[in-house]
Each structure stands twice: as C-alpha cells, then as structure tokens.
C-alpha cells in the first residue's frame, strides 16, 4: 500500500534534509544532521496533531473508552441506577449455564451461514458474469446495488409482509400451485431462512461490486494466455480468477463475518418486538440473535453487567471465527 520512500518515524531525522523526494515531509525541513531537543520536535508538529485530534478525541470518548468500560461492566452487577457491585466472573458463569444465550449463539451462527454462503457465491458468479458482458454494465451495477442503500427496517417490514403466514404473497403464489400455506414466520428453521434471505438480498450486490473491482484489476493478457493454452471458462474461473482474487475474497469473508454475526435489526423488526411483547425473536425465540439478546438483557431488563458479558463473550466468538476463516481461506496458498 505504501510506497518505498516512506520512512518510519524513528528514521525520520536522518532522512529529513537528505536528497530525493521524501513522500511524507515535515512542514519545515531541518538541516541535515542537526539533532533537535525532543520536546521542541513534538511541538513543531502541533498543526498535524491538531488536525488529527478531532477524530481521536471523539474516538477515545465514544469508541475506545466505551469498549473497555463494557469489559469492566461485565464484572459488575448493575441496573444502571443503584450502586455497582463487583461480582467477579459470576456473570460469565451465569452465561455459561444460560440456555437462551446458547440458543442465541446457535441462531446467529445458522443465520450467518445461511446468508453468507449464498451471498458471497452469488456475488462472485454475478461479478464474473457482469465482467464478461459489454452492454448494460452500468445499469446492472446500479440495479443490483440498490438493495444495499435501502434501510433494514423497510426491508424487514417488506419481508414480513411477503412471507406472512396467512396473507403473504409467497404463500398466495404457492397456493395457486396447490401447495398449502408454509409457516414461514413460525417454524424455527424457516424463520432463519427468511432472515437469511433478507440479508442475502441486501448484501449480494455490495459484495458483487467489490469482486467486480478485483476482476477489473486482473490484466486481460492472463486470460488471453489461458485461452491460448486451451483452458475453458470453468477452468479459467477456478484456476485463474479465484486464486488471483483470493485477497479480495478474504476481505469479503471477514467483512461478512463481522456484519453477518451482528444481525439485530432484521429479527427485531421482523417480529415487531417491543417492551410490551416479551416474545423477542419470534415464536420459540428462533430469531433471537445474540445481539438481540444483549439488547433485551441490557436495555429491557436493565441488567447492564449481564449485557456487557454477553457482548464480550460474543466478541471473542467473532474473533475466533475470523481467525478460523482466515486460516481456511489462506491455507491453500501455503500448502
């Protein structure tokens, strides 16, 4: 990413007055060889520090500090009003024995697999096809990307209407073929399928655009050479396109892992849960994702310590999954 002339901060003083176009140059060049006192050196950069400070201040206050404060909270018992009480690992022990937590983890993982696999495969196929055609390219790109700019709330309401057990369009269509109504929004598996379909619809176009960018960066001479050697389209795809695209595929796998495991709004809106409706996550809690369970514990039950424990346990799970995914995706290259 960075070009060779870049020098690390430690090496800067020697290079500063030297010849050659240093890419990142200080505002005022100091004569070569003059060592400046450290404090003056830092003060000299006050404009740069001032320029990046707004971001880092906001970041520290609203991201950095909260992330670690939630770790601290996970070892407390607190309802947000009274006094905080240190309980050690009790919240995590509780979590370990909590069947609803494990149910939510299972739900999240199933929804994640059911949505990520078709999303990424579909995106790769569509990107390859889109890369191969000449006409209507711009139209396809825009039309396939549009789902991603629609709000999850609107999409979830729409899916709820279309997959409604009694009056939904899907069951109406199935009815005309003579199939009896399918309980889309009450069967524990079908609930997950509907949520996964929703996410697939929203994210395929997004990933397609990323893959397309990768495909466009592959020089056509490679394909011409493959064709000269007599490789068919399928073989070209698996032996040239996929290996070259590996870093980009890895990138999308990681992004989808992080995004896909954070499903919250979809089941929350789909099953119209609010404080009055205890049935969070739909019938049998089949759509209760971990973040939805966190929301319920922290903001509906005001159990801040437990909520914090849930998100941290969940975060560790995401880390494990990202590492495993990374391993799987990069293994072929080393082997």
């Amino acid at each position, binding site marked *: 990413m960075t070009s060779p002339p870049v020098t690390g901060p430690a090496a800067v003083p020697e290079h500063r007055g030297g010849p050659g176009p240093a890419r990142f140059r200080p505002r005022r060049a100091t004569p070569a060889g003059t060592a400046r006192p450290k404090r003056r050196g830092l003060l000299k950069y006050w404009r740069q520090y001032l320029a990046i400070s707004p971001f880092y201040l906001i970041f520290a206050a609203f991201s950095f500090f909260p992330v670690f404060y939630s770790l601290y909270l996970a070892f407390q018992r607190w309802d947000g009003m009274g006094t905080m009480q240190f309980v050690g690992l009790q919240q995590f022990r509780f979590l370990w024995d909590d069947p609803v937590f494990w149910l939510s983890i299972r739900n999240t993982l199933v929804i994640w697999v059911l949505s990520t696999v078709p999303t990424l495969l579909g995106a790769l196929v569509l990107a390859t096809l889109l890369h191969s055609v000449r006409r209507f390219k711009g139209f396809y790109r825009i039309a396939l990307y549009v789902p991603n700019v629609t709000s999850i709330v609107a999409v979830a309401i729409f899916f709820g209407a279309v997959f409604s057990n009694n009056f939904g369009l899907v069951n109406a269509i199935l009815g005309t073929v003579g199939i009896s109504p399918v309980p889309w929004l009450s069967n524990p598996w079908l609930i997950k399928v509907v949520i996964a379909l929703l996410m697939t619809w929203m994210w395929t176009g997004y990933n397609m655009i990323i893959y397309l960018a990768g495909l466009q960066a592959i020089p056509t001479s490679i394909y011409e050479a493959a064709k000269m*050697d007599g490789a068919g389209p399928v073989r070209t795809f698996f032996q040239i396109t996929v290996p070259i695209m590996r870093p980009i595929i890895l990138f999308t796998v990681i992004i989808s892992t992080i995004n896909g495991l954070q499903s919250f709004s979809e089941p929350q809106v789909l099953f119209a849960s609010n404080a009055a409706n205890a049935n969070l996550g739909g019938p049998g809690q089949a759509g209760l994702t971990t973040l939805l369970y966190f929301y319920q514990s922290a903001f509906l039950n005001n159990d801040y310590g437990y909520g914090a424990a849930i998100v941290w346990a969940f975060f560790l799970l995401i880390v494990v999954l990202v590492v495993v995914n990374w391993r799987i995706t990069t293994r072929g290259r080393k082997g």
Partner: protein
Amino acid sequence: MTAVDDTTHRAPRARRLRRPKGLTAHIVLMLSVVISIFPFLWTIVMATNTTQDIYKSPPKLTFGSHLLENIRHVLHTIDFFGSMFNTIIVACATTVLVLFVDSLAAFTFAKFDFPGRKVLFGLLLLFMMLPLQLAILPQFILMSKIGWVGMLKALIPPALANAFGIFWLRQYIENGVPDELLDAARIDGAGFFRQYWNIALPMIRPALSFLAIYAFVGAWNDYVWPLVVLTNPAHVTLQVELAQLNVGHTTDYSMVMAGVLMAALPLVVVFAVFARGFIAGATEGAVQGT
C-alpha cells in the same frame, strides 16, 4: 503448453461459443435485477391498494389507486414529517462533520510525517474492525451522564468516529494530490491549513462525494443506536418511527407499506442520482483497500 497448431484450432471455436455464453450472462443478470428490483415494485403495489385487496386470494397484482388515501393514514398515525425532519437534520450534520474531520485527518496522514504517525494510524485500522456493539452500552451510560439521552444530538458523536472514512480518503489523497503542488503552495507561503483547504480539498471532491453519500445513507438508515438512545417516543428518527408503525398496525398492511415507500423513496432517488460516481468510488476504495 500444447502444440501451436492445436491452439490455432481452438481459438475460433472459443469465439463462436462466446455468443450464446454472453446471452446466458445477460439472462442471469436480468433475473437478478428482477429479484433486486421486485421488492420496490411490490411495495408500490401494496401501497397503492387497500388492505382488503392485498389480503384477497389471489392477491391483486397491479397498481391500485389508493396511494393518497394510504399516505393520509400514515400521516395521521405517525409524525412522519417530524421524524423525517429529525433524520434529515441528523444525517446532514453527521455528513458535514464526518467529511471535515475525516478529510483533515486523512490529509495529515497522507502527506505529513510526524512522530507517532504509524502507531496512530495502526490504532485506527485496528479499531475499524471492532464491532461497535461492544461500545453501545457504555455509550448509552455516557449519554445519560451528560443528559443527552432522548436528544437528537446524542446520535451524532458516535457516528463521527468513522475510521473507515479516514482510511479510505487517505488512499485517495496519497495518489490524487501531487506532492509538487503542495510544495509549490508552500513556497508561495501557504501554511498547513491553507494547503488543506485550498489545494487538497478541491482536488479530492470525487472522494468526498462518495464519502458524503456513504455517511448520509448510513445516518439515514441507522436503527440500533437511535432505538436505544431516543427514549422519548415523540422525538425519534424516521427508522424508529417506521418500526413503530409496523408494531402497532400489522392489520393495515397497505398503510404500513405506504409508510415504507415514503421512507425508502428519498434515499433511492438520491442514490439513483449519484449512483454512477458512488459505485465508481466504492470500486476504487475496494481495490485500494485490499
């Protein structure tokens, strides 16, 4: 590695085969476009008919004439324009601030060296990967400590911690703003902030417009944080209001769908207008980001 005469045999055959393959590609792509566009059309169908028409078996499949009536119901049931106004304010404020904060930091990271630069940027990359949900609960506690719970301004600071914007703009500035130009400006006596404002900013306008749409869409569609922090039901954003419309009125689908249509349409229009530049920007960022 086959013999030369073999390859000359194959080349014309491959060319002859490509035509039907192109057709299949178009068919598959067209079908995908239909799937991707269909929900919008079907939302319009549902929003322009009465609930009875939708519930009928088989349901009515054509556009109806009850749109205005349904819209009137929506306006009657929820404070649509009030919440939309809230959303517009928040989205605009967030977008402007994100553009300023991120471009200034990105410019600094791309074109200047200063002690700690690498560490600070690495920190930024690291935290770009942290799931924001880890921070929601303490953010809420923080907001209640400073008394911002229930207020629109509570939505803005968390949205400003946008590490992606800095990362993305930095790539663009590094290649898009020539060093020579900054040198020339410096010789002419332009200080750091003049170089940023008068030279870098005008040159990175395409990147800024991409980030603007990205930030605006994100702020417009945000749901989780507004749901948590906007505790006053009379003062919420459009997405929260829309979800409420769905909770209370599941029996009146055509009205709910009219609300969905009204809430989704402005953004789809904005996207359609800027789509070309936006997708070009997204593509560029994706290639450079990996």
